[in-house]
């Protein structure tokens, strides 16, 4: 305890130096915490929007549909929609059918991915359909179609126009069917706007010669965190049908999860450089403070302290420096997070147009959200780093020869 007291007093002998060092360490901690929390918030928002438009948090496919995207891997959902819907934490279950085909107007033809959906379920969940009423969406077996705005333009169609969809049915024949443009959707992503075509699931299934079947059962959860808890329950429901597989969104949407991984890895790399620089700064400070007190350390050794004591003293000083930086940095980091959560960063101030990341359109206002365990973890890591920074100065201090140090002026 006395040692900590002494260390604390030593720390403030060179007030400016300690303050500057503290500023560097806590500034870095603040940035790491703040930007992690911002990423955390933005990623959560992206995942949320991504899974709602995409495969859900969890998804059921037949065999390796996820890799092959072969439409022969379709299955009849039977009771699954109701059963999964009753699981705790499940917000919605979306049965979907995907059929690659050709959409033709009188002038043009384009490749499309005909998506058969249940409008009732989809309307509440799918962000692409935000703001649309049920009347604007296709009925289960009607001829209404929701068309991406760019596709509409390329096909030279207007709302209300008819067009033909040609695709290959299960038995290999090319089959065609007439649909009518019922509503138009603009997502902001070119790839989607030029290929989106939503129709009633039953209609699509009958056209493809697989009535009642689907390829994807997207399970949207109320809370992302519930994935771990729901997954085993979902697997239990599927145990009688071994050809069906439950996957997490990270496997089903590798594009999004990898985009997040890569983005996070890049910021981690920057953090590592930052921490490295800060650590070198702390080593410098501690070393200076040891070298400055060369004679004093000689005296402390002369009055009977062991070299180990001196080392502990240096570590104690680093520890206190680390603790103060950890607290200050966390306070600043929390303030920054608070600001980024309450106000956020409005990207519309910096750029125009839609914001897309990893195949997901995201909210132009980036908002942080709190990741307490991480903040705590990185704060303690900072403390650990200042202790690591003390190793070399402590070794130096421990090697001081008292007789020589006492001669020193």
């Amino acid at each position: 305890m006395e040692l900590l007291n002494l260390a604390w007093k030593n720390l403030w002998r060179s007030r400016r130096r300690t303050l500057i060092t503290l500023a560097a360490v806590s500034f870095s901690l603040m940035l790491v915490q703040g930007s992690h929390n911002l990423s955390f918030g933005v990623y959560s928002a992206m995942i949320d929007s991504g899974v709602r438009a995409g495969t859900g948090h969890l998804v059921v496919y037949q065999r390796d549909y996820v890799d092959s995207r072969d439409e022969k891997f379709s299955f009849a959902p039977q009771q699954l929609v109701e059963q999964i819907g009753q699981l705790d934490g499940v917000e919605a279950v979306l049965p979907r059918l995907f059929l690659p085909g050709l959409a033709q107007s009188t002038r043009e033809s384009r490749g499309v991915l005909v998506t058969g959906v249940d409008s009732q379920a989809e309307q509440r969940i799918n962000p692409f359909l935000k703001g649309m009423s049920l009347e604007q969406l296709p009925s289960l077996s009607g001829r209404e179609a929701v068309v991406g705005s760019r596709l509409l333009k390329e096909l030279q169609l207007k709302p209300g126009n008819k067009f033909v969809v040609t695709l290959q049915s299960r038995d290999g024949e090319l089959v065609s069917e007439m649909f009518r443009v019922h509503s138009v959707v603009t997502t902001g992503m070119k790839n989607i706007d030029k290929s989106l075509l939503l129709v009633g699931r039953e209609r699509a299934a009958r056209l493809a010669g697989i009535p009642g079947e689907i390829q994807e059962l997207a399970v949207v959860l109320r809370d992302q965190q519930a994935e771990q808890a729901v997954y085993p329950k979902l697997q239990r429901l599927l145990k009688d049908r071994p050809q069906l597989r439950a996957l997490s969104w990270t496997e089903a949407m590798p594009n999004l999860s990898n985009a997040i991984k890569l983005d996070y890895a890049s910021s981690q790399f920057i953090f590592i450089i930052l921490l490295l620089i800060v650590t070198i700064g702390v080593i410098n400070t501690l070393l200076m403070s040891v070298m400055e007190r060369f004679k004093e350390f000689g005296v402390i050794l002369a009055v009977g302290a062991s070299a180990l004591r001196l080392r502990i003293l240096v570590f104690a000083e680093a520890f206190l420096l680390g603790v103060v930086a950890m607290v200050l940095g966390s306070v600043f980091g929390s303030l920054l997070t608070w600001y980024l959560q309450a106000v956020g960063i409005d990207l519309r101030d910096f750029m125009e147009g839609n914001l897309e990341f990893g195949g997901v359109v995201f909210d132009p206002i980036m908002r942080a959200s709190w990741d307490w365990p991480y903040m705590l973890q990185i704060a303690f890591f900072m403390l650990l780093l200042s202790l690591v920074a003390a190793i070399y100065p402590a070794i130096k201090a421990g090697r001081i020869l008292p007789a020589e140090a006492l001669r020193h002026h």
Partner: protein
Amino acid sequence: MLWRLAIRNIWRNRRRTLLTLSAMVVSSALLILCLGIFSGMLKDMLASATEQYFGHLEISTKGYQEDRDMFANFSVSDDFLLLLQPQVLGFSPRLRSFGLLSGQDKSSPVELLGVEPERERQVTSLQDHLQAGSYLLADDHEGALIGAGLARRLAVKPGDQLVFVTQAADGSIGNDLLTVRGVFATGDQGHDNGLVLVALPWLQQLLVLPGRLHEIAVRIEHPLQAAAFAAQLRQKLPTTLEVLDWGELLPEMREVVASYDVSRLIIVSILYVATGLGILNTFFMSVMERTREFGVLMAVGMRPGQVRLMVLLETLAMGLLALLIGVVFGVLLSLYMAYVGIDLSGSLTPITYAGGTILPRLHAVLEVTNVLVPAAVLLLVCLLAGFLPANRAARMQPVVAIREE
């Protein structure tokens, strides 16, 4: 004289100088590396959109790129193409069609580009991404180069027959046979799953559009100067045609590039604030230690301005030294990453967004800005961090300073 004094002074406390230098070197070298890798990703992404598909510029009928209307076609004289020749790395006249492509018993919607193989390979680099078979030959009338995903879906390999069905310009349904010559894999899912290259005359015949084109894709030497080149080209074109650079074709990509410039500055500033605080600390320490010495210098007639200059020169000398080492290390690291790189395909799949694809690899690109920005900012930070201690040194009263122990 002041320079010599400054340089000697920074070596007086060698350990401290070395530690501070190492922080500066680490920050600048790793920054250069890091920016090089980010540029590499960006370049991959841009390349997937331009060098694998659009080219850097597209000449087409006004509005064609908006809706890709089959009827928005044009023809150009050979004179015009020859005019284009000397100014670009390559250009490729193309005709485009959308339709259904069928293999043995599977079919899939595709986008067909009718090209002249020898010209197309000057613009796009699909020949570098062949997975099987070969590129189209100049006189091959019915050959097709298809994406890997598509080949898998249709279960075809080089030598297999394909049938393409679409609507022709005269309203009839056109269909004809193709033979798979090669399969390419770029990592971009959109291209790998739905793009097919065929011979231009074959497609012109099928669509009943003899001699007509939809676009001329152009490749130039400096992609980032595409907009300027497009403006220049515009004046030479008939009014019915337009030139769009990749930024106009892919506004999302242009935003990614713009936001990269912003984030580069943010990263540089963040790292240098931390480095700058370290330098500030070192120079304060070194100035405070030498209080007595400054007193003596001033007592023998050195003016405060000269003392300030001397301390600033010390920081500048240190900054220059750090810069030299940092740039050398940074460039070496970047070169290593440019020629060797790290393959991440074990843990990452290609990531497609904003119209481009980031390949799963760490691969640096050396760009002058990526060296200049960290270098210039480092010097600036050094001078800023030296400013306070220099002022402090200049404000000392000689008498007080000498008395100080």
